[in-house]
């Protein structure tokens, strides 16, 4: 930057995010290669996608050129509220209680074990708190201004992921020794016709426990979310 007052040509560094546009692309377009990534639970829900000279019609542009980052931020804000998965966690706790009533330990259902019931009650309290917080965040949207996502959604993301993980841990406890057999087919070629090993509901529980370690990583890791809270809410 030259000394003195505003010179006639001062180089202005463009922000990194400018120049990003949002396109809708048909996956059948020539030049696209999809390579599945196998996750530790055996599934292939995530992939690498490679673009090699892929031609996309101009009318597939979403909104305005170079405004893609604004649209992405908006979607990320939505992702953070949706990602709390309150409804899914409620359903999973119901399922947890069902299975804990079926599984016997020392002659009684696990659901009759005081220590186990206390753990369920504790996570239900956390979930109820999260549900209320989510309703408050949604209500606040009505009066919030600006196009930045509400930083309070970071609270929803962190708590939501922790609760989901806790529930999978409790389900893992219910399945007990039957966490061991690997019964969920990893792809079409692995489907089998044998009766299940152990209870018929056991198969997916250990893989789900492994898979859900992702919830504290994706959607903006919980560490990043805490940084957002510290900066954007607490001004630290």
């Amino acid at each position, binding site marked *: 930057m030259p000394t003195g007052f505003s010179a006639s040509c001062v180089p202005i560094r463009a922000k990194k995010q400018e120049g990003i546009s949002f396109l809708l692309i048909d996956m059948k377009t020539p030049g696209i290669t999809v390579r599945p990534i196998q*996750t530790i639970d055996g599934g292939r829900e995530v992939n690498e996608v490679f673009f090699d000279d892929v031609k996309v019609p101009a009318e597939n542009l979403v909104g305005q050129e170079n405004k893609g980052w604004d649209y992405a931020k908006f979607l990320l804000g939505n992702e953070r509220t949706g990602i709390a998965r309150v409804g899914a966690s409620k359903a999973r706790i119901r399922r947890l209680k069902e299975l804990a009533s079926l599984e016997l330990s020392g002659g009684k259902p696990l659901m009759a074990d005081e220590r186990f019931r206390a753990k369920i009650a504790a996570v239900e309290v956390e979930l109820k708190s999260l549900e209320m917080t989510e309703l408050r965040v949604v209500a606040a949207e009505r009066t919030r201004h600006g196009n930045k996502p509400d930083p309070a959604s970071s609270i929803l993301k962190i708590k939501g992921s922790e609760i989901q993980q806790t529930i999978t841990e409790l389900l893992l406890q219910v399945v007990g020794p039957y966490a061991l057999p690997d019964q969920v087919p990893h792809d079409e070629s692995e489907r089998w016709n044998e009766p299940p090993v152990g209870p018929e509901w056991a198969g997916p529980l250990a893989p789900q426990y492994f898979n859900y370690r992702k919830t504290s990583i994706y959607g903006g890791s919980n560490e990043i979310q805490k940084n957002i809270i510290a900066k954007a809410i607490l001004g630290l």
Partner: protein
Amino acid sequence: MDFALSEEQQLLRHSVERLFADHYAFDARKRYAQEEGGFGRAVWTRYAELGLLGLPFEEQHGGSAGGPVETMIVMEAIGRALALEPFLATVVLGGGALRFGGSAAMRAELIPQIASGALILAFAHSERQARYDLADVAVRARREDSSYVLDGAKSLVLHGESAQKLVVSARLAGGQKDRDGIGLFLVDAAADGVSRRGYPTVDGMRAAELTLTGVRIAADAVIGSPGAALPLIERIVDIGIAALAAEAVGAMAAMHEATVDYMKTRKQFGVTIGSFQVLQHRAADMLIALEQARSMAMLATMMAEEDNVRERRQAISAAKVQIGRSGRIVGHGAIQIHGGIGMTMEAKVGHYFKRVTAIDALFGDADYHLGLLAEAGGLVAA
């Protein structure tokens, strides 16, 4: 207390670590998993050559009279390598049955075969309805002239399909959950009436469901006291848990080291992620969990062949609680710090996490053992 390994023990550790460094690269492991039985047959021969398969057995039968510490050393190395071979099933569990309850003739016949790598054993005690209760045995054994006849089903038999001989518990008398009336028997896997269904386990190994229909075995195939074998079974399980504790420590140590290495090399926002205090603290928490687990694996090893049964069982339960908890702390932290890559099959860290999870599910999870200790009024007498 002296925690130092003797020179011989250090040599043992060094040679086992060499074995795995030479033969257990991660892609070698993938190949072994595809072999029949799901482990490296040639590597199993290497174990035999190093004397590992004869480790705890008496020297007159080809063993090296090693104690629990020697087993701990080998198991920790197995944990670090994520080794797939049936060492626990054959040498620790099956071998424990022979050492503590096998007749002289049985030991003379079988131990040399185990030590040479020719014989693989499996321990078939768990049953579908039992969950973690060792006394819950529904498989029946009845005496018929000079034989026993076995009927029923066993579940989650580690390496059950690879074993040529099975150590099977069956009830001679009493109600299904009675502590008395249980017998332990050596069954030939090829005997009439034995059928097995093998399957992969989540940690990359293999187990089997076993069905016994009118399986006839000779009277001299009994291990321990027929009808009073539960204390023997508990003893076998206890040395099994001590061994698994050591294996879990090996896996945790590997996860922790991989994590710290990753923190030192992976950059984000222009700096290594190891410079973030939050992650440093998490890595420190993982270290604390690892060291606590290591300490309890050592206690379990020291108490594995303790004469006072109550003290032995309590120490083993305490160790199982600790390694279950530590396995979770270290496993969760390792995956989290590795981020997305930690979630992939390609990275090693996820496999360690699955192994420590599987170890927690074997012979009673942390919660089960905590319950036993709680019922007994805690670990230390008031």
